[in-house]
């Protein structure tokens, strides 16, 4: 990659003899070169290209033209975008606490050393995470079926009428259920491994001081895994904002309940692939990326400050 040569402007001034520092920085380039090349190619270039795309507009009539920040302005006033953002925000507000709480509960239970078959439970609870999201959603989609699926079977076996999990009112909760099933094991594993590294001496000290199990949890375990909690929260927030697989796979079963602007990601997908509005879609994607970054960063700041 010849492009990694520093630009001419970076040459040391003639009046001064070459400083040692400069030579050192040359050697440094050589070492980080391969990394920078790959990093720029696979991380920065796509982002730069998206930003570039988002500054244009391509119309069926009239072709492509440069429009500056028009797409961003349009996106900020786009009701469908805000609707979808509202939907994932609601999802996040309900889903993230549930997933973290259950994950934490299971991790603490496994760590308490009072259960038999910990290994078995740990693997079983983690197993859904190993199932590809597509397969998991297809499976749940089948179970949710009110005619020939599990729900339908329960209905006819017990003579009841369960509400349709794929109706407009319930579909978000049904997706939440799938996501919970998929990711609890993952959160549990993060917490569990953080709990495992707490030194035994702390527990011994607690026992000497006469602390009960509950006190041990609040005074030792929770503070010790605060970092893991923050990480899991950030992952969950990003995951919720990026909700895509589940709605897109369930959609053929519930076209009226899952709209093409169901989540921001699904909306950008629809814009791009149904509407051929690649440029506008890029603008929406970048705005969504910024929002996700800001929220994740705020959570991280808050989490770290409390920890300090």
């Amino acid at each position, binding site marked *: 990659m010849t492009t990694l040569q520093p630009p001419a402007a970076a040459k040391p001034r003639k009046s001064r003899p070459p400083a040692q520092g400069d030579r050192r*920085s040359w050697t440094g380039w050589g070492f980080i070169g391969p990394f920078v090349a790959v990093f720029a190619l696979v991380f920065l270039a796509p982002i730069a290209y998206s930003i570039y795309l988002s500054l244009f507009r391509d119309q069926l009539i009239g072709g492509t033209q440069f429009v500056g920040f028009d797409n961003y302005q349009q996106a900020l006033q786009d009701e469908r975008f805000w609707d979808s953002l509202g939907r994932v925000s609601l999802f996040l507000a309900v889903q993230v606490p549930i997933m973290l709480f259950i994950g934490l509960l299971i991790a603490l239970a496994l760590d308490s050393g009072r259960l038999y078959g910990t290994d078995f439970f740990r693997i079983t609870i983690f197993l859904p995470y190993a199932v590809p999201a597509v397969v998991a959603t297809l499976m749940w989609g089948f179970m949710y079926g009110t005619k020939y699926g599990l729900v339908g079977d329960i209905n006819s076996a017990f003579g009841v009428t369960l509400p349709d999990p794929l109706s407009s009112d319930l579909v978000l909760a049904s997706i939440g259920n799938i996501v919970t099933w998929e990711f609890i094991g993952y959160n549990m594993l993060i917490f569990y491994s953080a709990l495992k590294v707490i030194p035994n001496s702390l527990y011994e000290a607690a026992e000497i001081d006469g602390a009960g199990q509950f006190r041990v949890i609040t005074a030792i375990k929770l503070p010790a895994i605060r970092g893991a909690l923050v990480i899991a929260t950030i992952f969950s927030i990003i995951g919720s904002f990026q909700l895509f697989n589940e709605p897109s796979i369930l959609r053929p079963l519930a076209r009226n309940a899952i709209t093409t602007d169901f989540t921001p990601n699904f909306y950008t997908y629809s814009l791009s692939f149904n509407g051929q509005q690649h440029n506008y879609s890029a603008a929406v994607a970048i705005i969504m990326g910024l929002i996700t970054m800001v929220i994740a960063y705020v959570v991280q700041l808050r989490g770290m400050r409390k920890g300090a």
Partner: protein
Amino acid sequence: MRRTTSRLMRGLAVLSVLALGATACGGSDDDSSGSKPVSAGDVQAALKKGGSVTVWAWEPTLKTVAADFQKKYPKVKINLVAERSGDKHYTALSNAISAEKGVPDVAQVEYFALGQYALTKGLSDLAPYGADKLKSKYTAGPWNAVTQGSDKVWGLPMDSGPMALYYNKKVFDKYKIAVPTTWDEYVEAARKLHKADPKVYIANDAGDAGFTTSMLWQAGSRPYKVDGTKVSVDFSDAGAKKFTDTWQKLIDEKLVAPINGWTDDWYKGLGDGTIATLASGAWMPANFVTGVPNAAGDWRAAPMPAWTKGDKASAENGGSSLTLPELGKNKELAYAFVEYANSGAGVQSRVKEGAFPATNAELQADSFLNTEFEYFGGQKANEIFADSAANVADDWSYLPFQQYANSIFNDTVGKAYVGNTKLTDGLKSWQDASVKYGKEQGFTVE
């Protein structure tokens, strides 16, 4: 340290810009798409010389056609790609066209989607190859669809979908209900059936753009008017009112099963008698045979119910053409294949495999009309389909961006199937969303 950072940033900037340049330069090889007439000799010469043609089409009968074609012209290799259909097919095709890479030489395009590709210059005009002289071979509806009302020919019609009402005779016989001949009778039959057995619905409908537009077509509504880049959308004419009044009754009284077409539930419902009728195109029988084998003998075809008694007006549902994407290669060979499949000897072999042709000769042939459908208990269903085809009003047009409009149908009209929204209001919001998109895309929308 600061200097290194700024240098690093500069290096990265250079790299990013380079990457951009690389992607931006990928495009615009000049297209050699002159409208010079191509003589029959050119096509013959190309066939002699040989080459390969990539065909993206999911029409199952093309497999035999491709084999026959290769047998006839041993130097030509037909590379049939049939994995994708519907939305996925169009997404792939649009992406290939905008990337200007991997564009197939021949692509199947349904009539409703032709306008978009024709308008964006994604397809070659086939008139210079002599396609304009084939007009008299085809029935009016499909020909109107491939020409888009102009003197250009964007594809050759492959099949057509004049509508018919498929009904489960076993169910109708069991409850001694007459097969409806008008839509009012249809609503009555729906009530009787559902009353006799609450598990039985007259039809499934959970909101399907293709079905709704076909129903509007039959009811005499003409919501889309297209004149070049001037379009209008209006779902408030008398025909649309006829449809919404009737269909609203079926939805309100929960007489249509909330099942989407082409799902497992749908096939099961067609098979076990809980979905008693299906208004669809004449291409449906082959799908019955493969998708609902357990109900063989139960089903029959009947003419579409009429909006006023005695009226024979019909409509098209589905149907597609084979087109030559502008950026495809081996144009002469590609045209030769399309002509062979949709106008030449290929039509015969496709009809034998259950395709419903768009060519007059085949539609009027005795052997075609007398074909007994084993699946329909030996019924000569083609007589009904051919009659329907003859009664399709050919002044219908789809939007030049129908593919997008259809994709948001369930966001708008779909609400009428699950909530308190009325069908008329649903159609109004579909209209608004279509108009908005049309304007964004630079159309003059009224």
